């Protein structure tokens, strides 16, 4: 066992783990008022999103605040933000699996779910922001009488492949991991309908040695496929900006900078979700203080990379002696959006430095607040990159500000509603912690250390 602080609380046995996790899904009376309230609010926001989409289809993207210098506004900001959030899930579930990081076990399932829901939210924006979204299939290479393919030099086409691959691999990986757990739920479910539904999705899992061998193989294979995506997807997203010659976009630092930012915001979101979850469902024995501590450290580390990128970006703008780049950064710092810029610097660079202290990392409420602040800060970062760069391009006659309308906010709030509604349904109907992997962890920790894992430990131990 590494460190004085275990990644598994004391007194966990194979059956207690199974019982604890599956009872959240199967137990009666688990549809608590708190759950209903949260799910209801999220549902209302989702309905708001429906309203916006209807209005977009009827009137057009003119309902948003975008205009001609600022042709991309909240939609693309939200796209980049959501897809960045997804990255932490893949990092935890795939990257850390390949690196044999045992601490990922209890958080990987819901982090992966977070990835899938975040990518769903992200994927909607490029579609919604189109002038004519009903023609979205022009982006795909499909056979047609004009022999016309998409423009493969356009980063937007790369995006189509990057995001759809990411979503497919994440979904498969998540589902394959769920199969043994779904079978456990099938076997433990009392209601007939539950048995049938979990039965269908467990795909005939009986737990034979062959099943396990294939399961292990498929998991490793999918982890291997998903790992490069942690790096590649946000790299491609950053190309959306670097390829255009807009001052503030046209920079080679973007790919690593975006990937670090993605993991930064992703871990912030995992913490935002994990801290209330473990408290509400009493999972402190599985998602321990040590988990929160490690995730806070990852956030701190990626936050420093992001800070370095900010500084480098500004330094290069100065050092390149390119008057347009310089003007862009002066505008960012002192211009009409300066408040946004300095808020972003405070939120992303200054406040997270508190995480250097272990006391802070062990104080759940503080970590939760910092994670929220980083989420907001990272959203502002994308806003600054997209909107502030566009509003101050080359031609002074076309410098114009972007003012979000209520529909801009409604679209954003709507996707937050969709994300949380999906998450509420997930924690109610699927095991939010992997039963199989937790049982493996119980088994392994009992072999290497005390027998605390396999057998109930007397209180004095």
């Amino acid at each position, binding site marked *: 066992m590494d460190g004085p602080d275990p990644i598994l609380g004391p007194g966990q046995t194979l059956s207690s783990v199974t019982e604890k996790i599956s009872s959240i899904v199967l137990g009666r009376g688990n549809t608590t008022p708190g759950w209903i309230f949260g799910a209801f609010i999220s549902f209302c926001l989702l309905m708001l999103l429906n309203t916006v989409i209807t209005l977009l289809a009827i009137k057009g993207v003119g309902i948003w605040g975008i*205009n001609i210098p600022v042709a*991309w506004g909240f939609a693309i900001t939200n796209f980049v933000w959501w897809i960045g959030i997804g990255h932490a899930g893949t990092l935890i579930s795939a990257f850390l699996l390949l690196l044999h990081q045992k601490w990922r076990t209890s958080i990987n399932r819901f982090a992966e779910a977070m990835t899938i829901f975040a990518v769903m939210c992200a994927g909607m924006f490029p579609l919604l922001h*189109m002038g*004519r979204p009903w023609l979205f299939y*022009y982006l795909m290479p499909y056979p047609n009488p004009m022999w016309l393919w998409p423009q493969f030099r356009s980063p*937007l*086409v790369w995006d189509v492949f990057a995001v759809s691959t990411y979503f497919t691999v994440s979904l498969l990986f998540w589902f394959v991991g769920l199969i043994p757990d779904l079978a456990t739920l099938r076997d433990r479910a009392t209601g007939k309908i539950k048995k049938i539904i979990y039965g269908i999705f467990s795909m005939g899992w009986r737990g034979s040695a062959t099943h396990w061998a294939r399961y292990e193989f498929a998991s490793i294979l999918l982890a291997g496929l998903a790992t490069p995506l942690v790096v590649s997807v946000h790299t491609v997203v950053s190309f959306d900006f670097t390829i*255009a010659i807009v001052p503030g976009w046209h920079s080679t630092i973007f790919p690593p900078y975006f990937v670090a930012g993605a993991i930064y915001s992703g871990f912030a979101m995992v913490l935002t979700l994990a801290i209330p979850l473990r408290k509400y469902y009493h999972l402190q024995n599985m998602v321990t203080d040590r988990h929160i501590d490690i995730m806070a450290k990852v956030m701190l580390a990626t936050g420093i990379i992001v800070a370095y990128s900010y500084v480098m970006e500004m330094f290069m703008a100065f050092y390149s002696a390119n008057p347009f780049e310089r003007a862009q950064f002066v505008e960012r710092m002192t211009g009409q959006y300066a408040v946004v810029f300095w808020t972003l610097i405070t939120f992303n660079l200054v406040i997270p430095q508190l995480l250097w202290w272990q006391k802070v990392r062990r104080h759940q409420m503080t970590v939760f607040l910092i994670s929220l602040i980083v989420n907001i800060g990272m959203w502002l970062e994308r806003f600054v990159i997209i909107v502030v760069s566009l509003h101050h391009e080359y031609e002074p006659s076309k410098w114009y500000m972007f003012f979000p309308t209520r529909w801009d906010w409604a679209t954003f709030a709507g996707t937050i509603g969709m994300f949380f509604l999906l998450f509420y349904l997930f924690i109610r109907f699927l095991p939010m912690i992997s039963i199989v992997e937790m049982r493996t962890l119980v088994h392994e920790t009992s072999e290497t250390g005390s027998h605390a894992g396999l057998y109930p430990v007397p209180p004095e131990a």
Partner: protein
Amino acid sequence: MAHQWGMVIDLDRCTGCEACVVACHAENNIATVGEKEAARSRANHWIRVERYYEGDFPDVKVKFMPVLCQQCDAAPCEPVCPTFASYHTEEGLNGQVYNRCIGTRYCANACPYNVRFFNFYNPKWDKPLNLQLNPDVSVREVGVMEKCTFCVQRIKAAETNARAEKRDVRDGEIQPACVQSCPTNAMVFGDLSDPNSRASRMAASSRGGKLLEELGARPKITYLQRDTWNGDENA
């Protein structure tokens, strides 16, 4: 060899009267968006006249510069379009295929001259203005990008006529609406692949320069201006 259409604009002759802007609107069925939308920077002017003020009050000089699509040879707007709606024609124009456009607006972001415009809502013409629509130019619907075409409908018509008469297009035969309406003859349109065309000869002038040339987009419009391209305004 195909024609390479280009333009020369003599800034020393431009009075900033904006006749070109009006002519362009009339010729190309460009909808007006109304006061409110225009205040949100959504007005579509395929050509605009930029004003620059020099000196301090009361000793102020005003300079005008008509800015339209520069029809760049290495256009930043073209490779970013995912559907080939924005593409390069054989005659060197930056074509915009309205039917193919899905409205990602990436071209508008990529264009350093900000001369691409978007239909945020469906355009409408109050009666009886609908009767003055030019039948040679398609009307664009909501969600579609549009931009200066160098009046491609006039170019095509002249080329068709010339082909029927088994001859080449004569220099000066084609006039985009802005060129035609310019009262001071500040704008000249022509074939840059023909070294003897008036546009080619004027483009070679020592007063000539390109807008934001250092970005490398290779714009096809040459601006003529006395001495200020090298920053020496008093010479």
